[in-house]
């Protein structure tokens, strides 16, 4: 963490809203990406991002400079997203992008963009079929670049537990995505 970021965090922890605004501007996109990948729901992801920053504001005084601020925010984001998912009555209610099947039938062939959308839809489906812990572990490793050790901290697991969660997620994703590689 840079010294300038530490300075901003200290100011925010002292109640400086302008400093906290800087942190919001800096991390909003990253939080949205994580929240969306956790939920596959745009509107929910927006709500989660706002909730994350409100919680961060209330608790920034407890933040220890030993870990990265982004890691700390990710921990809040993952927990908030999991909380959201638990509250859902229909867990699998996400809208996967579908290929334009009518156009495919009309033209009798699948265009490159259709294949791309199909891959995206199937990746999304595979991702949402993982357990919350597995999906979180994979998202944090694959997209956010966190180490196994950091993932363990974020998910409150042992290092071995976080490693196993990543392994299981990878195995499931490979099985789901393998047919698309050869297609």
């Amino acid at each position, binding site marked *: 963490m840079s010294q300038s970021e530490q300075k901003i965090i200290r100011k*925010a922890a002292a*109640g400086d*809203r302008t400093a906290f*605004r800087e942190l*919001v*501007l*800096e*991390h*909003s996109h990253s939080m*949205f*990406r994580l929240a*969306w*990948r956790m939920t596959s729901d*745009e509107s929910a*992801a927006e709500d989660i*991002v*706002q909730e994350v*920053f*409100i919680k961060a*504001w*209330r*608790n*920034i*005084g*407890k933040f220890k400079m030993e870990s990265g601020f982004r890691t700390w925010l990710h*921990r*809040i984001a993952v927990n*908030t997203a*999991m*909380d959201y*998912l*638990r509250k*859902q*009555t*229909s*867990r699998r209610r996400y809208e996967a992008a579908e290929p334009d099947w009518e156009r495919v039938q009309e033209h009798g062939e699948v265009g490159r963009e259709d294949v791309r959308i199909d*891959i*995206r839809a199937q*990746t999304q489906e595979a*991702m949402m079929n993982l357990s919350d*812990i597995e999906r979180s572990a994979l998202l944090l*490793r694959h*997209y956010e670049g966190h*180490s*196994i050790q950091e993932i363990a901290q974020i998910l*409150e*697991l*042992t290092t*071995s*537990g976080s*490693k*196993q969660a990543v*392994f*299981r997620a*990878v195995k499931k*994703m*490979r099985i789901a*995505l393998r047919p*698309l*590689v050869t297609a």
Partner: protein
Amino acid sequence: MKYVTDDDLTLLYYGEHDDPGLAARVAGSEELSARFDALSAELKLADEYLPPGRGDDYGSHVWQRIAPELSAENTESKLNWKSWLSALGQPRFSLAGVFSLAIVAVLAFMLGRSGDPGGELSPLANTPGNSLTLLGEVDPTRLLTQKVSGHLENVNLVLTQFVNTPEVSANAAEFATDMLVTNRLYRRAAAAQGNQKLEMFLAGLEPLLIELAYDAQSRSPASHERIQREISDGLLFRVRVFNQQLAKTGQTI
């Protein structure tokens, strides 16, 4: 020379393998290179899981939405951060959990029925297009074995975590409760199939899962240590060995 597993290759892919010689070994082996390339190609597809874009002013938009919510008071929290993180784990017995357990219940019921040597399948099972027809085409014993194997993997993960952590998280309470209910359903399915060994093994797990769920709620250090000892004294080992047997045989134990 130690066999290179897919897990080793996964760690290598993410740059986290602790064996510095592994990369060279993979590069020097056709078989390992092919496996690594396959893994890379499959995981690369995951990059297609792209979130919808947000404009450059998204951060400002978020700020405008939350600014009224932020109190002017000092940010020292009214709740400590551990307690609210734990609170995020509530309610323990969530709707999502109930939903997933309902699916397991239906599956266990169907496995039990289709494997019941003394029972008869519903006439609906032979109706073309009915989902039960499909189930009738697969080996119910094998299907149950696969499902139980996945369940035991989860049990193993949670027990390992429990043994290695000084205190229980709110998530552990939810997992333990879910696993307890799932365990019972699979035990009943095994009983209906006449698979006594599997039934007895799952029955043997139940008391511990009950204690685990209770301990996660009560958070008593003494109880936590006692259960940790019980798990370390062989239960974890038995779960792993039994699951390995399940994976190897893929049939009735």
